[in-house]
């Protein structure tokens, strides 16, 4: 466990010593503030469009940060050969995988907290309401989403050779699931037979990432997802995360490293 935490600390250090996170955060802040400064019919209580834009940027930034860091981890270790001195220590490859995962996940969590604080400040300063629980729930669910994404990307990073191709493929896959996952069954029912079964199978296999996207509820102040469902969704996410991590380990376990 110590080893895993030490590994994850290195990942976090790397993330905050690289500049991309700050760039994304500043970009989000600037765009949101620009939008906030627009004069709309002399009404400064309008807030939902701001929340919507800010949340959209948070989701995109979160995804970019998650995929960007996770896709790089193992390939960069191999490319820079830092994996050699590391694995020469009493470190198992499973520990490497879990450590990398936890590092990315914690790092993204810290980033998310900063993003949501910003969102809370912006929206709170306008509507003078502080739906803290609602934001916390959205934050948590997005964090679970990111856990699944990171695990998926780690799996991709031991399958595909180049980190850039892995990043692109993961991005497309995650966006696809996130955007279309909900409708696959519906689309399947309108298709002819071979495609129909295929689509249905995919529908039941993929992790339903769209669940974790509760932006609409937050934006329109529709209240909370019942906590029981929230917990179930978290479990579901944890199961997929574990599945991807085990798969990553199985691929990575017997890989010869001297390339």
């Amino acid at each position: 466990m110590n080893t895993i935490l030490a590994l994850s600390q290195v990942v976090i250090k790397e993330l905050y010593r690289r500049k991309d996170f700050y760039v994304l955060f500043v970009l989000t802040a600037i765009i949101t503030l620009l939008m906030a400064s627009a004069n709309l019919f002399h009404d400064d209580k309008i807030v939902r469009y701001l929340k919507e834009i800010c949340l959209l940027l948070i989701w995109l930034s979160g995804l970019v940060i998650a995929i960007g860091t996770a896709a790089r981890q193992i390939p960069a270790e191999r490319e820079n050969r830092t994996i050699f001195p590391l694995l020469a220590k009493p470190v198992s490859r499973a520990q490497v995988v879990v450590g990398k995962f936890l590092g990315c996940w914690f790092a993204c969590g810290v980033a998310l907290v900063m993003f949501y604080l910003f969102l809370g400040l912006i929206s709170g300063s306008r509507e003078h309401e502080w739906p803290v629980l609602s934001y916390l729930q959205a934050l948590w669910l997005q964090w679970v989403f990111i856990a699944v994404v990171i695990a998926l990307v780690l799996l991709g990073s031991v399958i595909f050779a180049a980190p850039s191709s892995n990043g692109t493929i993961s991005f497309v896959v995650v966006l696809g699931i996130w955007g279309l996952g909900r409708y696959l069954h519906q689309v399947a029912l309108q298709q002819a037979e071979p495609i129909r079964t295929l689509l249905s199978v995919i529908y039941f296999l993929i992790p339903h990432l769209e669940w974790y996207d509760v932006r609409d509820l937050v934006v329109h102040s529709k209240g909370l997802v019942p906590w029981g469902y929230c917990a179930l969704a978290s479990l579901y996410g944890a199961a997929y995360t574990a599945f991807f991590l085990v798969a990553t380990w199985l691929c990575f376990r017997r890989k010869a490293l001297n390339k």
Partner: protein
Amino acid sequence: MFPAQGAEQVKKCSPYLGLVFLVTVCFTLATCLQCRPGQWTARAQSDNFLNVLLGDGRRMFANHFFVKADIYFHSGYYPSIFEQAARQSIDTKHMTEEPHDEKDEKEEHEHEQTMNFLGAPKDWIDRFGRHFYPSSHSHLEKPGDAREILPWLRLSADMDPERIETYTVAAFWLRKRLGKVDEAEQFLREGLRANPTSSEILFELGQLYFENRHDPVRARNLWELGLRRWQAQAETSQKPDDGMYLKLIINLAHLEEEQGDLRKTLYYRELEVKVSPQPIAVQKEIDELKQKLATPIVH
């Protein structure tokens, strides 16, 4: 000694001098070109250069933002393209309907039906997922919430100034729900500048003067202008909007009746009866009017 030192210094500065030179070139070019866009836009108007360049893209965005406003009107409960493909698309007229108006029961029911696009859950994933997004039909409830749809209408108008619906819907919300009559008028006038021939905007502007400003004279002027514009359009285009025409003459008739000019009222009622979906009721009113006109007013 001295010149040598100077030369040394120049050498040291030369990259910066080069930079300054390049900046100057950029600036000069920029100022030279500054007068050009005028010519370009002038040409753009002649052969629709701008339209070709970004016309369709902008219109697509404008449409997207307009739909966004409708989504906000439904607090996020809205069919996706997949669900729309399965059913008929939603028309956005309901956005400007008063919830407590004498509303058309049938139309209301129809809207409820189209908005019931989710149907029964198809499987457990679908059922479970419905807890994570707005999944029941509602319109904006709190009066202040209406303001939330405005940004999208504003954006839509910026993207496609020729989309008339944007102005009328926004003005409706501004003056009915938010009491922002000045802003509504300003926005409508902006729309009118972009679409000088639009009878819809003229109608809405007249409404504003009649209902909010209690200025029947200007309202009449606007509506009459709207009527003329409509007629001019009807002559050129094949399919004029009969609904608009009807609304204009009904309002005009109403206004004249209130002002006590029964002759003009009669004139508009007689126009109305030709296109009204309920000609019998209108005919009855015409008969009453004629009776009133026949009996001399006793002081």
